[in-house]
């Protein structure tokens, strides 16, 4: 048991190819904040939605960062209320990672998030609401180990408007492993 614990935490040092967009102390908390570069996924399904991933650490806390890009079409002019409610992920929402061995890692968010939405007008009765939402899924050491040990096949994020699903090919999910390894 003790050996298993040692193995679990004896993570490899961050690879030399790790690139960080943020790597500095927070001006507010003083904690060291690290965000890897966002990595793009290869989508297995053709869709206007896509997701990016980053490994995030804030002090001792680790997160899987997900940037969700979604497009929703509505048949009328988009109001500000439409924009404010396009993607809302309350604290306590679930993020599911379906792994290559069909196991599921479920993580619960600890911060409410509202997506940054804007609209594109196509005609008087067709508007696309385009939203970018950054979700931070807090990870325990075991969850982080689980997410880097094998490929992620699918990610599901619960929102107030339903679930957002992202399904990825082999190459894309390997990229997610690589950014999470950077914060181990």
């Amino acid at each position, binding site marked *: 048991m003790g050996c298993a614990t040692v193995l679990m935490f004896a993570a490899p040092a961050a690879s030399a190819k790790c690139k960080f967009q943020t790597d500095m102390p927070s*001006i507010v908390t003083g904690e060291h904040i690290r*965000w890897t570069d*966002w990595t793009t996924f290869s989508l297995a399904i053709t869709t206007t939605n896509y997701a990016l991933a980053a490994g995030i650490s804030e002090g001792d806390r680790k997160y899987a960062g997900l940037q969700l*890009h979604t497009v929703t079409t509505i048949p009328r002019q988009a109001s*500000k209320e439409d924009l404010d409610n396009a993607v809302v992920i309350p604290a306590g929402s679930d993020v599911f990672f379906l792994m290559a061995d069909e196991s599921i890692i479920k993580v619960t968010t600890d911060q409410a998030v509202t997506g940054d939405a*804007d609209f594109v007008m196509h005609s*008087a009765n067709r508007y696309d609401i385009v939203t*970018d939402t950054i979700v931070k899924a807090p990870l325990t050491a075991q969850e982080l180990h689980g997410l880097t040990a094998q490929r992620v096949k699918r990610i599901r994020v619960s929102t107030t408007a339903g679930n957002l699903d992202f399904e990825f090919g082999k190459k894309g999910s390997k990229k997610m492993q690589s950014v999470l390894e950077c914060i181990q």
Partner: protein
Amino acid sequence: MASSSGAVQAISIGDDKFLAVRLRARNMFPIPPQLNINLADSDQYKRTGRFDPRLDLVLDRLKRDTAFIPAGSTLRITLQDRSVIVLTSVKDNSASNQGWKPQSGEENTGPNFLLLSEASALYPLDADMIKALTSRLAVSVRMETADRYYEFASRMNIQYPLTIGEKNGQQLQEALNCVL
């Protein structure tokens, strides 16, 4: 999405410090469907629809409302360390709007109203905000108006979406440093 750009200025009035932001935006609006004006028959439209007084009323309303920044509107700045500063405007700010009716023959309106807007708002800064804004570069700026939000960066750059770039972040810092 609206095509927009922004400019910032730091202002000091006695002991009070402000961040001023100027928004320039280009917005298109369709003819409201309830007006039942048919653009498909362009000759008919040019003869009648273009001069329909209801279009003038719509344009007047758009010129009054577009890019209006009410008191209490927010300016959200995300810093390089991922901390977020939210500034709040203290008074109503009307935009200066220039507008064109659909297929007016001027500008490139196409079948829509075209509004070119310029609006400015003042956001008070406290000591903590100034410390944060001068210590860390800004990476994104999102400005709220009465009817929508404006991001001063593109969504098209997948690797750095909605990011204003290091040079713009430095310009914001330089402006603030000038009034301290």
